[in-house]
């Protein structure tokens, strides 16, 4: 049998990935046999109407969910062969998440939220502080280190979420509609920040979005429809 493992520079690979849900109304094919490869340093955007499978694909890539068929590889590692503990470690060490509704930990300050993943990784305190402060300064949040999430605007919270996602230098950042709850000016600022991080740190980004501005700025646009890749997928930038 031929080796299915993707080459090293491929950060994400989906091979015939299915995610079907059984409901009382019948089987829902949220993702239906998708083959996809994302290379290191790409800024890829998943686009498509609601229910097209964008969030499902992000959940599979982020090791938050398991495919009902096919395989998902991160850095060449097949996720189906990993234990729960190993998947948690993979998420901690290799993947950063930016959620649509920010999902900061409400009882932690801005600085502590950004440090959280590094703490799980066992990064020494001094290094944690220094890296968290540096990324927050890069994102224009240097004056807000000790604020709680509830004291921040939506745009500020989303920038903290981005800082949390990239601070530990993951191979991959997954962002689920990161600009959905933001006004156009804040969205533009956030996109600038993500693009800059993508370019300066060569971090791979995969974002799902309905936002045409974000689609326009992506290096690669991946269109989904009814759980399948749309033939009109196009490379950009």
């Amino acid at each position: 049998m031929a080796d299915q493992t993707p080459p090293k520079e491929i950060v994400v690979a989906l091979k015939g990935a299915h995610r079907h849900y059984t409901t009382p109304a019948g089987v829902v094919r949220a993702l239906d046999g998708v083959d996809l490869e994302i290379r290191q340093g790409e800024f890829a955007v998943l686009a498509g109407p609601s229910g097209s499978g964008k969030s499902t694909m992000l959940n599979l890539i982020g090791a938050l969910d398991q495919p009902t068929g096919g395989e998902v590889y991160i850095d060449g590692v097949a996720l189906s062969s990993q234990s729960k503990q190993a998947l948690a470690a993979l998420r901690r060490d290799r993947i950063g998440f930016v959620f649509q509704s920010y999902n900061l930990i409400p009882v932690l300050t801005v600085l502590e939220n950004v440090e959280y993943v590094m703490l799980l990784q066992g990064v020494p305190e001094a290094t944690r502080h220094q890296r968290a402060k540096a990324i927050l300064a890069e994102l224009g949040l240097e004056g807000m280190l000790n604020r709680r999430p509830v004291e921040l605007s939506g745009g500020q919270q989303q920038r903290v979420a981005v800082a949390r996602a990239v601070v530990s230098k993951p191979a991959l950042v997954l962002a689920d509609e990161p600009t959905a709850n933001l006004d156009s000016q804040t969205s533009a600022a956030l996109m600038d920040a993500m693009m800059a991080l993508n370019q300066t740190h060569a971090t791979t980004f995969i974002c799902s979005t309905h936002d045409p501005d974000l689609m326009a700025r992506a290096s690669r646009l991946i269109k989904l429809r009814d759980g399948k890749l749309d033939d009109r997928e196009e490379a950009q930038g």
Partner: protein
Amino acid sequence: MLTKISWRNLRRRPLRSLLTGMMIVGGTIMVVFSLGVQHGSYGMITDLACKSGLGHLQVQREGFLDKPTIFKTLKDAPAAIAALEADPAVVGVSGRVEVGGLFAHGERTVGGLLMGVDPVKEGTVTTLPKRLVPQLDPPNEGAWLPATRGEDDPLPVVLDETLANKLKAKIGDEISFMSYGADGSIIAELFVLIGLMDAGDGDTPLAFTRLQDAQALLVLGDRLHRLVVAVKALKDVKRVQRRVSLAEGDVLLGWDEVMPGLAKSIESDRAGGYIFLIIVLLVVLLGVANTMLMSVFERTREFGVLLALGTSPRQIVAMTLIEAGWLSALSVLVGAIIGGALNAWLGEGGIPLGEYSMDFGGMTIDRMPAINDTLGLVVIPAVIMIFGVLAALMPALRAAKLDPSKALRIDG
């Protein structure tokens, strides 16, 4: 940071945490206080029982307790006395001899036990010398046994009031006693009744005479049947038992072995007290479990985020248990401090029993003192705390088993 998150989560719903905490505080206060009074009362009753006649400890010849006979004397009484008196916790040691026989006065004869006691040292180990009962008709205060006796003076005897009543004897009357000596000979002797006393609620009628006189009468020489020992505090009983070694054939018995009936009734009563403890533990278990379950339900999405960020299921369990640990530890600490302070405040004075006072071994129990001991103030509160943490185990496992992709879709 897990500890920090847990602590801050506890403060997120201050009213709910406060209510659950108050429930644990209340339960802990009740347990610490009730155990304090219970243990204080047991201590007082036991101490009274020991001082009423049998002492905190006794040295006997092995087998004497079950089958006492005049022939089972101590192997090496002087060595035992020296060892006991050298122990810092021992406050008094007094020797005794005893023999069963017939007491007679006029036409009346009653079986009973004649005990030879040291008139001076007895007062250091029991309250017997202080428990004289005045005779009313004719009025006579009576007297305890004299330390010395002239060669021609009659042999003095102090009778238990019950025995004196059965014999219809009054102070100054002659009482005859018949038994057998350690050499097998029949002995018969005349005593003069010098005092009446309340010797307690025992079944055997008792009579007390001077140790030296009794040893001579029973042909025992300087041999003894028992050494009665008093210690500074009840807790010293086991320590002295561990520390003091005796000649082979002699045994050092604690009060619980000498008075097994008392020990058994205290144990039964103690078991009853633990039912109350179990109820409190159940209340704590349900209270903390309910609080933590609500907390986990409310934070389902947050747990989803933590899992997505790479927090391991084990860390989620730890975080939830630490949160319950904070709640339980602080509440139990406050409860133990208040309960302990209440016990310390009541102290020896205890709760007055008023009209419910009772007589025990010639002494009146008119209060229930409270004490703080390791079991009531440390061990049991620690058990409550552990239960508080264990109560969070089910909610913690539930949080750890969450499917992050589903948890992230939950509102809230």
